[in-house]
């Protein structure tokens, strides 16, 4: 294996490999900063550029674009509350509050360090699991997918503690929006009201850009016309990126657990980095000694989401190369790229000479991200200057960049209209205590919930949900998440009453 990795590295680094990867890294970072396009979109857009390249260089380039975009996306997530790439959305939850507290550099340092460590651990896990891949993926079927999706929703509802009712309602509305489009049973249009545009459902990109970027820009414009985002005293101590790196080292438990979560979620096709980062964020918050700090500028929140987001790609590569099942959108685009270059995907990739391609993919997963991390650490701090621009100027500029990004994906003006509508919805949700995160996660998981429900019913019947060990384990986890807290409180109350004390 080591020999294979060394050989792949040499092949990737053969001229003009480094130059090609560097261009890919820069393009990925740039696209990551721009909200709307995203890593997968950018990789797809740049696919034609690779036609003339050697397959191994094409792999390096596509991986560089796809993996670097997350690092670019973290910059805008932290500095202006705009997730450049959907998986960066969880980073905004604590990254942006940190920026508002004058700790932007620390957040950037933590996010970058978390990304790099997550990527390394993701690749290590990938290499460790590669030989037993087939058994793992085959153990998951429709009931397990259904339970995984359900647990994602329940987790988010549980996370909106103090506001669980509105969290659940937000998730419900998100699911209803997700059901718009062709129904998964007959393929007939459903809830489309005669609009051809709605046949594909509400696209995630305009919804995401509107809910997070648009809503924030509306708030920024409305309330902080002449003020900048940062609202700390001039004399206050500004953080350094090194603080973030140190914080990442200190939060090693969060890093390891987030990498595991990211990797496992990545392995399961169709779920992807967005869910990985939110799940990891939720776990970090629940396990933290100071959960009350989450959502208000906890550096562990930034570390958890970015680590999982990058470890996810290691997991996502696994089903892509082993079974030809893309672990996520980015991997789907990569798979198309491999096929274009005559590289076989699926089980035959794991045999004989083709193993060089597997190792090239593994190395290309890691190498460009190291370069991208160095670039972010070198110039990311300077991007903090963005936060000093008055809201009345910054908000319209970012809004237009976001609008163009949304428009560029499909050249559809209706996507822009959707983004604008979701901007106002997100703004109202924020003002009235609803959870935008619950809505967007429900929108992500909606199709998976419905599809896996029907597939389970058709394949296993209702017993499928409770007769398979992994599905049962996940069901128990869901029930514990929902009722564990209240049950524990009830037990404590009963115990306190029995002993004549007062309930805590």
């Amino acid at each position, binding site marked *: 294996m080591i020999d294979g990795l060394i050989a792949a590295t040499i092949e990737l680094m053969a001229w003009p490999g480094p130059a090609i990867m560097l261009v890919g890294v820069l*393009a990925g970072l740039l696209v990551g900063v721009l909200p709307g396009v995203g890593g997968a979109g*950018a990789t797809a*857009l740049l696919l*034609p550029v690779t036609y003339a390249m050697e397959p191994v260089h094409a792999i390096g380039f596509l991986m560089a674009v796809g993996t670097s975009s997350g690092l670019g996306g973290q910059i805008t997530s932290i500095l202006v509350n705009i997730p450049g790439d959907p998986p960066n959305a969880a980073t905004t*939850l604590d990254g942006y*509050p940190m920026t*508002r*507290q004058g700790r932007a550099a620390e957040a950037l340092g933590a996010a970058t360090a978390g990304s790099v460590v997550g990527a390394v651990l993701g690749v290590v896990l990938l290499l460790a699991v590669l030989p037993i891949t087939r058994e793992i993926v085959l153990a998951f079927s429709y009931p397990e997918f259904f339970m995984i999706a359900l647990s994602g929703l329940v987790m988010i509802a549980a*996370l*909106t*503690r*103090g*506001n669980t*009712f*509105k*969290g659940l*309602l937000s998730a*419900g*509305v998100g*699911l*209803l929006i997700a*059901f718009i489009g062709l*129904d998964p*049973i*007959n393929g*007939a249009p*459903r*809830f489309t009201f005669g609009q051809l545009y709605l046949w594909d459902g509400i696209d995630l990109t305009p919804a995401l850009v509107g809910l997070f970027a648009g809503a924030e820009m509306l708030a920024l414009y*409305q*309330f902080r*016309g002449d003020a900048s985002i940062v609202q700390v005293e001039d004399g206050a101590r500004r953080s350094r990126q090194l603080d973030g790196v140190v914080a990442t080292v200190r939060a090693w438990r969060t890093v390891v657990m987030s990498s595991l979560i990211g990797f496992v979620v990545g392995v399961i096709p169709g779920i992807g980095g967005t869910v990985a980062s939110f799940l990891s964020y*939720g776990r970090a918050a*629940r396990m*933290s000694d100071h*959960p009350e*700090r989450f*959502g*208000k500028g906890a550096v562990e929140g930034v570390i958890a989401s970015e680590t999982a987001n990058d470890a996810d790609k290691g997991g996502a590569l696994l089903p892509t190369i082993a079974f030809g099942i893309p672990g996520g959108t980015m991997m789907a685009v990569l798979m198309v790229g491999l096929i274009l270059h005559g590289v076989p995907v699926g089980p035959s990739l794991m045999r004989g000479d083709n193993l060089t391609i597997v190792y090239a993919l593994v190395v290309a997963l890691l190498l460009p991200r190291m370069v991208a991390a160095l670039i972010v650490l070198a110039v990311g701090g300077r991007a903090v200057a963005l936060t000093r621009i008055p809201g009345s*100027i910054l908000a*319209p*500029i970012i809004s*237009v*960049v976001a609008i163009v990004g949304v428009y*560029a994906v499909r050249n559809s*003006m209706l996507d822009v209209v959707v983004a*604008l509508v979701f901007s*106002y919805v997100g703004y*109202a*949700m*924020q*003002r*009235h*205590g*609803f*959870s*935008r*995160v*619950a809505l967007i996660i429900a929108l992500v998981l909606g199709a998976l919930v419905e599809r896996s*429900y*029907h597939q389970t019913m058709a394949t296993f019947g209702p017993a499928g949900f409770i007769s398979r060990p992994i599905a049962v384990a996940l069901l128990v986890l869901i029930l514990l998440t929902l009722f564990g807290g209240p049950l524990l409180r009830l037990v404590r109350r009963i115990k306190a009453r029995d002993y004549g004390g007062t309930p805590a």
Partner: protein
Amino acid sequence: MSVEARPGPGDGAVGSGGKSEVGPGAAGPDPVGSRPSIDREAVVFDLIMVAFAALIVVTALGIGPRARVVPLVVGVPTLLGLLFLLGRDLGIRVLQPRPPSTETVHSMAEATDDLEAAMAAALEVPEDTPEAAQAARRSKILLAGWAIAYVAGVFLTDFLVATPIALFAILAVTTRRWLLSAIVTAGTCLFLYAVFIMLLKVPV
């Protein structure tokens, strides 16, 4: 911990973005016997969401039995929950109101030490003065008008024509500095052209 951490009226905590219970006009759990004020914005938003959920549920009743099962399983409880929320925001009480909980007081006490909550409070206070409330209303109308005019502009002209004009218009109206607005608009357009058209070859 709260992921979204945007508690709003009646949710028991103070946070960024959501209206604070401590502020005037909040329709949270008020002391027993006092008359709750109605947050009209919250009611309008509740109504919009109720209308959407009702539309999905009613439409679902007319589609195939298997295609409607999951939407109905999700839609009916969501609609009922939203109706309950609407009633609560309208001040309709099914149960006797409880006195303010110690948890809320605890959250408020915490909020005094919390920078973000303090900033949220700073954001909300100006709207409580008549002048600031009027300015905020004007700003909302301006933004809504801008969005509608922009979309209309795109359909009437072209995306590439309407977008820079819309950017220049909003900057000029807001900053009242024409030259700065023109420079910022030109710079943004150049950046977008370089990235999307020259670098990414996106057929915008």
